[in-house]
């Protein structure tokens, strides 16, 4: 047993911390929230130069071939920095799907470009059904001569507006069990019949509605075998849940540190408010929750790296981290008082992101339900 980070992991985490502290002030984050593109292409290039876009991509496709634990180190710091942009969509969601399911030709074509930062992907999975379950996929893909014709509405799609390709999840067999007959397609978002409409949401994280109306996709753009996509998606969604947790624990730590620092400085009734029991106990609870969330995330990431079946670990972790992040940010605002509720103060960035992140890739109800299933209840 060794519960410390490896030297490599620590180094990656430290360099990411330094990089974002230098390159991404929170003022820039706030500006990018209302920017149409939503991220800095300059910063993206720098991240690519550091090798971060290829962190988990195999060496043969010009990546660094690291695992989930290293990805967690990086995402932890991205969460702390409130990094806007398509890193998560491309590297956490898109690339693993390509790695797990695509043909050799597709991999050699796409993965080196992802690794070099020259290709942006977006996952078009969720729909108005608003669930990550296979039963929620109603978009259809009907084979016709040498192509598939896609029809349906994809909703809550992060980064569709800036993606080079959408990875579209659709049903190729309409009358089948939910987890059967689901296929993946590489779709050019400029194809005729696609309309992308931005959605404004609490975290200003650039979600979109993607409407597909008789969109023709060449048969060569099918990823993996027809109808066999769900096991791949299931695995990627588990990784995505833990990757999202990594961003969230970064946000938790920032919140605890920032609120504690303020509590030491802010004087009321002649004492720093951090000298009062009520504030101390809020902060102690936040510190505990943030710490446990971190330990849970590390453990789940390790399970994923080991290839240990970990539906239970992922579900318990997502539940824990959801609630920790929501609680830490809510109480953080409380400790900061009035100033915490303003746009000027940075804690709002974290509060808003916590509300969003807790719903992505397993909200608390959904995760608890998975726990109950794993307990055979």
């Amino acid at each position: 047993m060794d519960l410390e980070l490896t030297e490599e992991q620590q180094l990656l985490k430290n360099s990411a911390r330094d990089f974002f502290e230098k390159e991404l002030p929170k003022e820039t984050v706030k500006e990018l929230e209302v920017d149409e593109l939503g991220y800095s292409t300059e910063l993206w290039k720098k991240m690519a130069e550091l090798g971060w876009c290829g962190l988990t991509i195999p060496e043969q496709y010009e990546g660094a071939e690291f695992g989930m634990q290293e990805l967690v180190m990086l995402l932890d710091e991205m969460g702390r920095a409130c990094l806007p942009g398509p890193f998560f969509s491309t590297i956490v969601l898109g690339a693993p799907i390509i790695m797990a399911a695509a043909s050799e030709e597709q991999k050699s074509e796409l993965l080196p470009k992802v690794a070099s930062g020259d290709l942006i992907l977006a996952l078009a999975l969720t729909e108005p059904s608003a669930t990550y379950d296979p039963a929620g996929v109603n978009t259809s893909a009907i084979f016709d001569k040498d192509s598939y014709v896609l029809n349906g509405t994809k909703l809550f799609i992060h980064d569709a507006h800036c993606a080079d390709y959408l990875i579209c999840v659709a049903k190729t067999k309409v009358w089948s069990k939910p987890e059967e007959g689901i296929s993946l397609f590489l779709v050019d978002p400029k194809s005729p019949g696609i309309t992308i409409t931005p959605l404004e949401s609490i975290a200003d994280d650039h979600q979109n509605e993607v409407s597909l109306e008789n969109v023709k996709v060449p048969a060569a753009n099918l990823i993996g075998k027809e109808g066999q996509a769900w096991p791949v998606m299931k695995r990627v969604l588990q990784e995505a849940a833990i990757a999202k947790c990594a961003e969230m624990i970064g946000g938790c730590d920032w919140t605890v540190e920032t609120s504690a620092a303020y509590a030491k400085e802010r004087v009321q009734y002649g004492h720093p408010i951090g000298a009062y029991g009520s504030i101390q106990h809020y902060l102690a609870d936040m510190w505990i929750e943030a710490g446990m969330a971190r330990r849970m995330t590390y453990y789940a990431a390790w399970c994923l790296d080991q290839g240990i079946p970990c539906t239970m670990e992922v579900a318990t972790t997502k539940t824990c981290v959801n609630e920790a992040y929501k609680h830490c940010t809510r109480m953080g605002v409380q400790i900061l008082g009035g100033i915490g509720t303003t746009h000027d103060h940075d804690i709002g960035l974290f509060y808003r992101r916590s509300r969003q992140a807790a719903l992505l890739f397993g909200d608390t109800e959904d995760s608890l339900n998975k726990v109950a299933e794993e307990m055979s209840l």
Partner: protein
Amino acid sequence: MDFNLTTEQKALKAEFDEFFKEEEKRAPENWIGGFETRFENDENWEYYRSCIDNAAKKGWLSLPWPKQYGGRELSYIEQALFAQSAEYHRVPAIDVHLSIVSAGILAFGSDEIKNEWLPRMSKGEIDFAQCWSEPNAGSDLASLTTKAVEDGDDYIINGQKIWTTGAHRANHLFIVARTNPDVKNTKGLTYFLCDINLPGIEIRRLDYMNRAHVYNEVFFDDLRVPKKNIVGDVNNGWYVTMAGANFERSGAGGIAAMQRDMEDLVQFCKEHTRNGQALSKDPMVRRKLAQITVEIEKARQWAYWVSWQQSADPWAFSEPSAAKYFMTELLVHLSNTAVEIMGLYGTLKQGSKWALLKGKFESMCQATLGFTIAGGSSETQKNIIAWMGLGLPRMK
């Protein structure tokens, strides 16, 4: 990071599991596990004594101690594995007081005191009871007023202690008393070990809410304790106390006990129907059970982290405090939730043919109240995190 146990640790764990599985079979009929139950009646106490003796024969009471004092020089991880195995099987083979005293002796004791006490402790010969708290010194322990005055080769102790769990069964006491009243609270305390049969000690029972005899008050009237029984230096007893108190807070075993309790509760919910439906299919019940499972997993991961950290740095304070606080609050929550889920059956005491799960949760939802107070209340643990972990200012 590597969450795997080493081959040696796995082998040791298997040995613990096999041993405690057998020990569990010898338990008295009404045995429900837990810490306080061992003191309640003669049958339980005999079972406890036999379990301690058997564990001592294996050398398991002193796993992390240096070999020269009867230990095996293993890390806190092995200690945690031992505790988990024993507590999962509800076998009372852990003596919290032994852990507290030994941690203090190992950190601050002279060679003489180590040689005199540790080998006997590792053999399970000594049942300690704790004389720290006083009627007016609870969370603010350092304000205690029991006095110890030097007199030749001895100190003469006068005063009153309270919440002395198991004093009516113990053969020794460990006492913190004031040896210098003229300095700051924490600076004038001294830590004594003492035979309980010395003249000048009076023990009075103080019944728990459920009428069980667990606690006692202990009165000292010119109790004469030899100087050679002092742990650490005179007036340095606060640090000896803290070394022990911190050890007490790592508690990985309690989590394994909760896992076992949850297994029982889940089984009950699968087998028990209400309005024609298994309780385990009721969405409200499912949610409660799943939520507690998440909380136990949080505590479990945290316990490993604490054990790992303490192996490297025995003076980490915030993490063990968080573990103690979280685990004991969870015990309260688990036992109360279990009573709620079991409905009207939940409050029946063991003994009735209608009582379920040996009335375990009826008992537990009372007993656990003490856990969030004893050994540093939940609020005290949060204070420690705030002061020592987050560096928040202390109100003078």
